[in-house]
């Protein structure tokens, strides 16, 4: 039995609650606990990621990044958050007030919903649907509706162009994300996250799936970056063209929502990538090296999970701070002429590999 298993903990909480309450009350209480846990996690995640991005980008650019607030600027993002909360919320004169206020919430709700289905460690998993992958890709693309609404209701042409770009982009890249994940689903023979992870007990799919898995991983990283409107694909907010794109008119807390959602979305994409391709919270094992494997087991799964996710996030930041931005027509060309055909062929090859039993 693994000492890092959270199943026991969650079960005992559940049993403790059940002994004193009716089943309905238990469910509600558990909902509330989980909601609180996620809210706190969400905030911390946002702050940490923003700080990490600012530091990493600074080091790429021969700078030091935030250094003033706290040691090494550690409290910088918290200070920024406080500032944003107290800022005056401004609305443009002819904006559609209802939609304008609604948009940031749609964006943030969709990230919340996606976050809920992520497996953080064994047993630390709020929603384990049997169609987990499908659910996440469905839910995470709700966010784009928020962006479209934001762009439309702002009564600003820059915002509108940004929102339209974002719409075209997410709709196209959603395909590639889905197909590259399907490649692994073919291998793992399940859509459920816990089973996908369990199927990687013997080794991560990226190693065991031959070249098709590697290609799928690359495609996933590219399409995932595009879906979060980041890096070389940040056309929706392209600051040198559209000043700030869809959130040009937002300020204060509502702007903070968009900002946070972008970073948490990045985390979600990285976490899915880590789970599906890199074995989630599974430690790194090499064949029959029992000693080595045991040392690896010693590192808690939650560290493995965040380590892998962190690595992928770093990769995405590396993209962002190196590459120029694509143009809108090139963005669509990349998807429809390159990623999609590659993906389709790749999935065929993968099906063939699985049929013949060639994978490890």
């Amino acid at each position, binding site marked *: 039995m693994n000492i890092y298993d959270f199943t026991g903990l969650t079960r005992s909480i559940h049993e403790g609650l059940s002994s004193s309450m009716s089943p309905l009350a238990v469910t509600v209480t558990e909902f509330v606990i989980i909601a609180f846990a996620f809210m706190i996690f969400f905030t911390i995640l946002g702050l940490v990621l923003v700080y990490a991005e600012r530091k990493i980008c600074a080091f790429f650019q*021969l700078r*030091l990044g935030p*250094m003033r607030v706290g040691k090494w600027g550690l409290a910088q993002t918290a200070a920024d958050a406080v500032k944003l909360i107290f800022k005056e919320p401004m609305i443009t004169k002819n904006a559609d007030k209802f939609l304008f206020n609604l948009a940031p919430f749609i964006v943030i709700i969709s990230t919340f919903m996606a976050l809920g289905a992520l497996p953080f460690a064994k047993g630390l998993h709020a929603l384990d649907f049997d169609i987990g992958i499908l659910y996440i890709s469905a839910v995470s693309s709700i966010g784009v509706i928020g962006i479209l609404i934001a762009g439309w209701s702002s009564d600003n042409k820059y915002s509108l162009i940004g929102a339209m770009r974002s719409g075209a982009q997410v709709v196209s890249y959603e395909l590639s994300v889905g197909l590259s994940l399907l490649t692994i689903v073919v291998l793992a023979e399940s859509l459920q996250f816990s089973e996908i992870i369990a199927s990687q007990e013997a080794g991560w799919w990226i190693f065991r799936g031959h070249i098709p898995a590697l290609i799928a991983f690359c495609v996933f990283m590219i399409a995932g970056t595009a879906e979060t409107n980041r890096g070389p694909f940040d056309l929706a907010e392209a600051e040198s063209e559209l000043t700030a794109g869809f959130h040009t008119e937002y300020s204060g807390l509502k702007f903070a929502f968009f900002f946070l959602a972008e970073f948490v979305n990045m985390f979600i994409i990285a976490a899915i990538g880590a789970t599906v391709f890199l074995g989630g919270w599974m430690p790194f094992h090499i064949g029959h090296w029992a000693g080595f494997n045991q040392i690896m087991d010693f590192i808690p799964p939650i560290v493995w999970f965040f380590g892998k996710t962190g690595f992928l996030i770093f990769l995405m930041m590396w993209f962002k*701070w190196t590459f120029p931005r694509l143009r809108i027509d090139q963005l669509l060309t990349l998807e429809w002429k390159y990623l999609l055909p590659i993906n389709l062929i790749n999935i065929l090859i993968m099906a063939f590999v699985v049929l013949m039993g060639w994978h490890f």
Partner: protein
Amino acid sequence: MRAIIDYIKSIIEGIRTLLKGMSVTGYYITHPREIITQQYPENRETLEMFDRFRGEVVLTHTEANEHRCTGCSACELACPNGTIEIISKREEVDGKKKKVIDKFMYNLSMCTFCNLCILSCPTDAIVMSKDFEHAVFDRSLLTKVLNKPGSKLMEGVR
């Protein structure tokens, strides 16, 4: 067939160029020694401007509170922006009436740091200081009187 090979070639070539770019940024993130940021207010003590740096015009005073400005107004004429205004008065020195400066007015906000006044001064009375921290909260503070109160012309300077 050719088309397919070209297609694949273009992909590989594209990825190669992208990786090349990433290796440059990757080099810098792994070599923090290359960081060029200076922590400005913290390094005030060690921060040394170059000798010729043009911070602002100052009138040099000796320890005995003497300066070299005769009030000839050459700098006022040389200045393209009307930054300098010499207000002189007549004073009785050894029984003779003599023109001396009353106020050397210098309006920092109008100065373009062109150095022409320094070059034009026949007695080298004014120089450019290395001070560059000019920010103040009130615009009127930028209009300065450069001669210190009670200062007088150095002996022998004419």
